[in-house]
């Protein structure tokens, strides 16, 4: 098997396993490690593909590959990782979008698509800043739905994976996703010309 070059790998994996086992402190230690890696990867992408749509799934997966020793982690610990990564990804991307908007006054914000393939032309990616604000608004009365969107959109998780992270059934997550998406769509189409 290939050698591991990063000393962080066992550390992250160990923390994930510890967190999975109920060690709350592990999350505190884990977050900055994942954060640094995600930022590094995101920046590399952002500088390279300035006008390209950014594929967050690719970023999170790359971080996953860099940070976790797949031999030693089971899916559950990876689910935790995706959970953390999704939140951090949102922070990084929205932060970047806000920074760009400041630089390019009146700009469109920063657009992101999760799709790995070209989508129908109608599938315009949402404005990240508006999405972020809407998610905050949603979280005020339904935090869980906001989290589902975060996991699926920013973390690139499937329904099944999201259910795993939330320790819930797929069916429940699927219908909650429908409602959350509908609410967001309605919310964003009110004030955003993007949709």
């Amino acid at each position, binding site marked *: *098997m290939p050698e591991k070059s990063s000393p962080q790998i066992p550390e992250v994996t160990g923390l994930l396993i510890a967190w999975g086992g109920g060690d709350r402190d592990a999350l505190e230690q884990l977050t900055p490690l994942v954060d640094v890696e995600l930022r590094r990867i995101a920046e590399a992408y952002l500088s390279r593909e300035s006008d390209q749509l950014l594929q967050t799934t690719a970023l999170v997966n790359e971080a996953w590959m*860099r940070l976790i020793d797949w031999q030693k982690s089971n899916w559950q610990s990876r689910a935790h990782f995706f959970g953390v990564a999704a939140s951090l990804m949102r922070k990084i991307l929205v932060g970047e979008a806000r920074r760009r908007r400041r630089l390019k006054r009146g700009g469109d914000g920063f657009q992101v*698509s999760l799709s790995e*393939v070209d989508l129908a032309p109608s599938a315009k990616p949402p404005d990240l800043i508006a999405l972020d604000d809407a998610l905050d608004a949603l979280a005020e009365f339904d935090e869980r739905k906001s989290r589902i969107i975060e996991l699926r959109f920013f973390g*690139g998780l499937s329904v099944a994976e999201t259910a795993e992270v939330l320790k819930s059934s797929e069916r429940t997550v699927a219908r909650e996703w429908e409602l959350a998406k509908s609410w967001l769509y309605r919310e964003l189409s009110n004030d955003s010309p993007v949709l």
Partner: protein
Amino acid sequence: MDKDQWQRIETIFYAAMELPQGERHEFLRQACAGDEALLGEVLTLLDANRRTETFLPPAALSPTPSAASSMRMKHCPKCGKIYPTLTRVCQDDREILSLKDPYQLLGSTLADKYKILALVGVGGMGAVYCAQHLGIDRRVALKILQPNLAIGNEYVLELFTREAKLAGRLTHENIVDVKDAGQTSDGIAYITMEWLEGRTLDEELASQGRFDFQRATGILKQIASALSAAHAERIIHRDLKPANIMLLDTPDRSDHVKVLDFGIGKILSETTANSPVSALVGTPQYACPEQLTVGGHVDGRSDIYSLGVIFYRMLGGELPFKCSSISELLQLQLTSAPPPLSAIRPETPPEIEALINRMMAKDPVERPQSASELSRLLDRILAELKVYESATTNVRPAKLSPSATTNVRPAKFSPPELSHVSVAETRVFQTKPVWRGKPFLGSAIVLAMVIVAGIYGLYRYRAQPVSEERNSVVPTPTASPSQSVPTVEPTATPGSELVAGKGVLPSPTINQAQLLANQKKAAELLKQAQALYKQGDYQNALRACDESLKFNPRLTEARQLQQKITEILRVLNNR
């Protein structure tokens, strides 16, 4: 929003979603019981839901990437007629068809010498045009680096120019010829290559599904030959996939392969540390485990893995790993053995299957160690199969016992009925190499010498340890060798493992049916182990692995899984 109100909305929304469109209004009227605000909320949400199909698309790998690209159309630059993307030439005026050009270079002249005729392909890094070299009036393929990637991004530019330099070093009949490279005054970086008339292997597979053995092995050999030449120059491809392999149009319709895009190839002697895109370069479906792992050491054997996936797809008509998300794909690519090819194509000769499994071994050490070794292995297998084939066609059919016929290959590669095979022919089968998951260096030569000189003693000497090992494979050997099976010169049998694996040749010491049954049992147990492993039930998965190995100690996947689980349990117990 008020939390209570939201809960009411939620309940009604879910209930309504379950109902057919026509029944929703009546239901909502009753459920909201005159609460106009509530009704309005739910109605607008349901309405929004209908438009969210492409909103916030969940991440997924498209199983057929071509489905998306087929929505794009091609047009004839001359008459403007529209064609599907796979069409190459306009029916009316034989012009090369073009895609819609996002870079708007169509019709312009690049670097004062290349007139851009058509856009024939678009990729992540740039685009490929068909152009006319005005100086020598010859058609070339002109690849440009996406302009906004090239400008102000030295790293990408360097990668691109390196592609030109690397590819420029290679001259081989199965590698596309690079002619020229440069950068225009307005900053467009380009490479020109010979213009090839043909289809990509990807397109061919999309239209043909899968290939017969002859065709697949023919293509495989040519790719291996190209890789061998590149590896000799210390260049590895790193992104080998059907879309990067061109099948030229030839007058006799035979396949002439050209490997494209040694684009992200890297010089082996170079250090990898300064490459920021080390991990994710490559196409995940065809990328080897070490390419998908942090700090994985990528070398020529990585190309062998990718080629294994291509070979699998050519024969099986599908990719070995199918999944709905990238993370799942990576997981499979890193940890699971490909499903046996014989499961989707039963007539697959076991030798071919074994070769593919070796090419796709997770550990590079277990793969053929070079493209030339791969070619040698393949030649040898083909020669063996040919011997079979010719023997079969010369032989009258004979009765076989039911147990012996269970594993007989159908059609083309069915083994000979030995009662009618002369001693000389039998000897050829008996001297087949022993497949043990390790390269048998020089054994081809040794065996050839054996056949030619007929040094029987030497043969026996070599065969002896193998027979012992095989005995150990069978936990419950019940000897009933010759009930209805034709007689063979018994002394020579032990070395003929490949033949034995097919369950047709008898052995004086081991019941072949038993051996097969054990192998089958081992495979079943491995499957159980894998399923348990996926569920996280490591203890029982480990037990199943151990059991599996009892039935077949040489089942590499079981061995690997056993090690992996042991490691996991160690970590879990330490925490």
